[in-house]
């Protein structure tokens, strides 16, 4: 896909994320919009995973550690044909499989997640199995910068480096805001790159809302042979909607009808401008 086509796709994804969050009257809006481009590039350019090969032991794996931004994942999975998109009309509704966090009841979801600090250890085990079985698949996990203080991440970071898992890539969606306040004010984890380096990982930083940059960076994994890779992706929370960008309340704010209309208008204008 061309960069332009991917950029258009991201905007379509963002519109759908908002559409289903408004319908559900629930969701993690800001974070879903910040990680949209990452998911877009992973699923459309990088990963060898599809409904056709989802049962194959050779498929690439994606584990969403920051499970609360599941709306972005569901929209992308629907687009890839894992399920009919209109099923998302039931998001968060009584007895729906489409709950507010990733669940294996939904086709295309690898692991049940939601509690923070769980994705990386599972990804380490999954990558380790790939090494043991001499398979070529890669494992990707998306983490939030707000979940960096969870100790289990750093336990897993040690194990990933110890076992030289260069088939593993962690992506930190560094949108710099979490539910209470800016991440730096809640528990400052900077300099994040130095921390990962010290744990034995190969680190790259990238503009996580720049499709071209994401594409180039993800295609270079592993960054170093014998080391797991981490991408610190600097993103904007609420990306693409002017009144949401970098505004704390949109962590899990749901737009009103007027706000929704305004957001769609802005996204449509952005689409025309590409």
């Amino acid at each position, binding site marked *: 896909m061309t960069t332009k086509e991917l950029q258009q796709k991201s905007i379509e994804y963002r519109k759908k994320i908002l559409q289903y969050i408004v319908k559900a009257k629930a969701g993690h809006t800001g974070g879903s919009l910040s990680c949209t481009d990452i998911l877009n590039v992973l699923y459309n350019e990088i990963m060898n995973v599809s409904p056709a090969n989802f049962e194959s*032991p050779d498929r690439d794996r994606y584990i969403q550690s920051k499970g609360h931004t599941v709306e972005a994942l569901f929209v992308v999975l629907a687009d890839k044909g894992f399920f009919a998109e209109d099923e998302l009309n039931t998001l968060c509704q009584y007895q729906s499989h489409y709950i507010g966090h990733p669940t*294996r009841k939904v086709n295309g979801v*690898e*692991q*049940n*997640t*939601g*509690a923070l*600090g*769980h994705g*990386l*250890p*599972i*990804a*380490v*085990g*999954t*990558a*380790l*199995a*790939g090494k*043991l*079985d001499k398979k070529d698949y890669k494992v990707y996990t998306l983490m939030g910068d707000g979940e960096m203080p969870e*100790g*289990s991440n750093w*336990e*897993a970071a*040690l*194990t990933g480096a*110890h*076992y030289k898992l260069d088939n593993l890539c962690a992506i930190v969606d560094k949108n710099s805001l979490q539910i209470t306040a800016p991440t730096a004010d809640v528990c400052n984890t900077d300099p994040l790159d130095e921390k990962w380096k010290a744990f034995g990982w190969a680190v790259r930083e990238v503009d996580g809302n720049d499709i071209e940059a994401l594409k180039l960076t993800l295609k270079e994994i592993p960054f170093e042979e014998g080391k797991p890779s981490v991408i610190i992706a600097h993103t904007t929370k609420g990306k693409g909607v002017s009144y949401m960008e970098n505004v704390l309340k949109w962590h899990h704010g749901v737009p009103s009808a007027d706000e929704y209309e305004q957001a769609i208008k802005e996204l449509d204008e952005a689409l025309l401008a590409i």
Partner: protein
Amino acid sequence: MAEQINTLPYKANLDVYSETLQRLAETDPNIIAVTSDSRGSGKLVPFGKKYPDQIVEVGIAEQNLVGVAAGLASCGKKVFATSPACFLTARALEQIKNDVAYSNNPVNVIGISAGVSYGALGSTHHSLHDYAALRAINNITVVAPADNWETEQAIELAARTQEPVYLRFGKKPMPSLKEVNEEAFAFGKGRIITEGDDVLIIGCGETVYPALEAARLLKEEGIAATVVSMHTIKPLDTELLAEKARASKAVLTVEEHSVYGGLGEACAGYLLQKGISKPFKIMGIPDEYTVTGSQGEILGHYGISRDGIATTAKELLRSK
């Protein structure tokens, strides 16, 4: 019944765990042991030497241990995540709940040196909450084998099953409860060790043998006991429980666990809801941090011994 007790040499269940795992690994490269610097206490040193590619070491990091185990299991590995029960089921409880049970990754969670096996090392190292914590988690089988036979059977079954299992082992050598076992071993099916009409004594793990010794003592006084090894605490063998409770004058449960939330409360809850009302007593560790001592001394202090169980059974029968 006394003649049923095996006089052959016996081992700690932990040793049987290690030997069984080695035997299974001989023909199955998918058997993987994951340890948190616990291959020594888990008796997995020989396993690691024989199968260096089938042991994964994560260091002292229990949360990561369980997460990594879940990832491996999701790729078809038959994982035995081994760590002291006290840390594994408390520190990594959320990983057991989410990464293993909720995600249905068929990890075998192996809690070693459980109960008060660590004796005088104190309450930080005692695991008296694990049945309670794991009973309340959906989609995990909770098992405490009593003797070497149950242990071997449970490990073999755990390696075959595609669902999450928690297995709990102590450190003490355990005598065989029967010389010959004719019944099939299954999770969720209790094992009748001896039968009698007066009192039903239900144990699990290392408390079954003292319960059997107590039954021998009671027999000398003309009291007939049924002893059941309820090796699976969840799902409980409610059919056996109801049948044997109905046939007995009193019911006594014995466990190396807090009196809260374990085998006893599981049995009591079921019987009460079924309307089966008998004099009932839960023997376990009371709501306190344990006295200092060896495993035997601590259990003895709380009456979990041949004499203590026999005395409690007689008191219970008198109370009816």
